[in-house]
């Protein structure tokens, strides 16, 4: 049944979405279509509204105008926990884990879609053996890379239909980033739609099917990942070479 939905409608569709924090507007009418089963990279500089876009897509922030459609259905007045339970897996930037819980407890928190605890640990440890070694350790004491593995393990433990990743490469060694994106590609191959937000272009673009550049709360440009990588250089990375 899921497959039919996936083939008939785009997984996520933003139609003129505006969003704000109090009086500060962050999105000024975003129109974007994320095809089902694809990896969609959202690029843009600091403050462009990338994270806000993910907050809207995960139900954490309600649009002040416009519509959000997930799998063809218009979503409004839905709590973030309901989003999560129906298969939207959002991993926020830099803090995708509970720092004062052990690795095992974190994994047990990821079982909200009904996966059993032993099963959850099995899936996570198979992919990331390092987490098994550290299963009793508090997540906050893990290295940055390990914390990100634990955060992404959420996508392995549950059965997400939409995976939202906010700057997972932040502060990590290139090797680790490569490893994480390999996993993302692997997850997407199972039919999961993925939206990745990145400030820096290289890694995300390599695995993405589509990309868009967000500037000042609007979609500046969209197209193939390579085109966008090129465009990003002109749009906001020029000064950094």
């Amino acid at each position, binding site marked *: 049944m899921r497959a039919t939905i996936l083939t008939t409608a785009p997984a996520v569709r933003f139609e003129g979405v505006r969003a704000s*924090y109090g009086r500060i507007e962050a999105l000024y009418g975003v129109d974007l279509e994320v095809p089902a089963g694809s990896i969609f990279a959202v690029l843009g500089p600091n403050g462009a509204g990338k994270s806000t876009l993910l907050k809207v897509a995960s139900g954490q922030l309600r649009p002040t105008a416009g519509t959000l459609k997930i799998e063809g259905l218009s979503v409004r007045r839905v709590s973030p926990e309901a989003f999560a339970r129906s298969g939207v897996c959002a991993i926020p930037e830099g803090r995708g884990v509970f720092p004062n819980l052990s690795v095992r407890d974190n994994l047990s928190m990821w079982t909200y879609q009904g996966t059993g*605890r032993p099963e959850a640990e099995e899936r996570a440890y198979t992919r990331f053996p390092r987490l098994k070694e550290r299963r009793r350790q508090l997540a906050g004491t893990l290295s940055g890379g390990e914390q990100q593995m634990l955060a992404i393990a959420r996508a392995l433990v549950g059965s997400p239909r939409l995976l939202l990743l906010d700057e997972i490469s932040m502060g990590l060694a290139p090797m680790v980033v490569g490893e994480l994106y390999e996993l993302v590609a692997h997850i997407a191959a199972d039919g999961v739609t993925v939206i990745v937000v990145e400030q820096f272009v290289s890694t995300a673009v390599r695995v993405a099917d589509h990309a868009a550049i967000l500037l000042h709360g609007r979609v500046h440009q969209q197209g193939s990942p390579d085109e966008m990588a090129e465009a990003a250089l002109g749009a906001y990375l020029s000064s950094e070479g």
Partner: protein
Amino acid sequence: METFLSFTVIGIVAGAIYAVTAMGLVVTYTTTGVFNFAQGAVGMVAAFSYWELTQSYHWPVVLALVVVLLVEAPLLGALVEFIFMRRIYGASADRSLMVTLGVLLIMVGVATAVWGQQTLRIVPPFFEGHEVTIFGVVVTYQQLLIVIVAVVIALGLRLYFMNFRSGVAMRAVVDDPELLALAGVAPYRVSRRGWMLGFMLAGLAGVLLAPTVGSTGLNIDTLTLLVVNGYAAAVVGRLRSLPWTFVGGIALGLADAYATGYLPGHIPAALVEQIATIIPAVFLFVALLVVPSARLRAIGRIPVHLPPKVANARQSLVGSGLLVVAVAVISVVAAGSTLATISQGIALGIVALSLVLLTGYGGQVSLCQYTFLGVGAFTMGKVAGGGGSWLGLLAAVGICAALGMLVALPALRLRGLYLALATLAFGEAMYYGFFSNSSIFPGYGGSITVGRLALPGTQGIGDRTEMIEIAVFFGACAIGVLALRRSAFGRRLVAMNDSPAAFATLGIDATVTKMIAFGVSAGMAGLGGVLYAGVQGSISANDVELFASLILLLFVSIWGIRTTAGALLAGLTATILPSLSTHLPPAWAQLSGLVAGLGIVLLGRSPEGVLGVPWLRARVRLPLGDRDALEPSGAFGQTSEGPVGVLS
């Protein structure tokens, strides 16, 4: 040996009750980030309800227990979460602390209205008449029951928090409520469960305590404060470890039992009782200092908002002048008890000013300002036979300032909540050990004569002149506080409050800043005390009740804890309400506590109090130059609104 064993039994039983209430505190704290000062009051309400059901309505014990512990307590918890706590989500730690103090006062006020009449209420023991002998010591079934219940609760809670997903979620919610929502659990439900569970444990402690209080019967204040002792146990558990909290409870119970049991025989019984009441406070104080304080966790962000504009020198001079003129006019019009009420209100305003400095600017919450008030008045009364001299005033201010620094000294490494607890412990110890001590304050509820401060070159002073004199002192203190705030010291104080971490990087010694703030504040409270006691001519333990400090703190917060006008209004409120309540039926005895409690919870998270409400700010220009030139802007809108859906 047998005596030792029987003291041990007594200690363990008392400790088990402390442990139950403390575990409730820890559960609420770990799941909501709020330290529930009302925990004791919940136990008190449960104990009275249990008495009502079993003794008035003659319900069977089991049914009454079910109703009190499984219906009333969780319902109260859910209500408190829904009505009070959810409104202050994201507010600062002091604010949530004050709201729980407010809940405490509301419960005490309501309980006074319902059960305030002087009826002797005795709850019969559980399994009356049944006992066993263990190692030659007679242990009643009730004592066994208490210990078994505490152990079962401790094990059960641990099992739940470690092995059930909903238990893990309760630990996760403080870490990151937004992430919890992303993991499919509604954070507010988890918090609500935390409140319900905490209240159930508080209620259980209250019901277990009820039959052990003996022939004096249930008493609202004692029950509320007895459970306060559980705080010490929670501190041993660093507010997060249930096993250590349990250990802390038992240790406290044993310390209490041994200390009172093994006091030398020649010490009079009254003194033994006093020592017994001080021990928990001392235990709490020591625990705060010895146990490495856990990183305090608070849900939410650091609130950013515009503080009221600080008046400049000219404005504060003009404001104080206007105040003195206004008071002079009132002093002609008012008469009798009204005159005394207003005079004392302005004197309390000076105590409230000390809180503006310490808590409003410095962010250090003190729950013992009335202790300094009392010490100040006492010193005045003792110097030069009944006081009244300027030397007495100097001595009072000096001794209070020194005492304040002394309290600050151990408290220097404590912050926020821990500091508040330390001051509470200090206040409690001073209340029971000093002010209630019949060899210092002679007789039952004894008082000490405190003379009025005569103007230089005169003998004695009339009621009206005294009122103006107090107003002049208030004006001078207000000018001083505002000048301090404008000085480099004031900026340091505010910076320390804003970001201790950033402050530490500036190369300024936080220790000195804190100590000066404490010293000045305590001295000022002592001055207020001298003037306050001068109006009525005496000081006694009744004037420095523990709740009084809390009530004044809440009134200052309600009016505006960063304004001098707020301090004045708070002082006046704190004397006018009790004088009003004397004209009301006895059920309203706790009127000011009720108003303080309701006020603070109604104010929610408006951080600047009534005077800071934008509508009022725009329309009312208060003397003392506290008016605000700036409208609160939306620049920091996230802090007041928060991302939608997180806890809405």
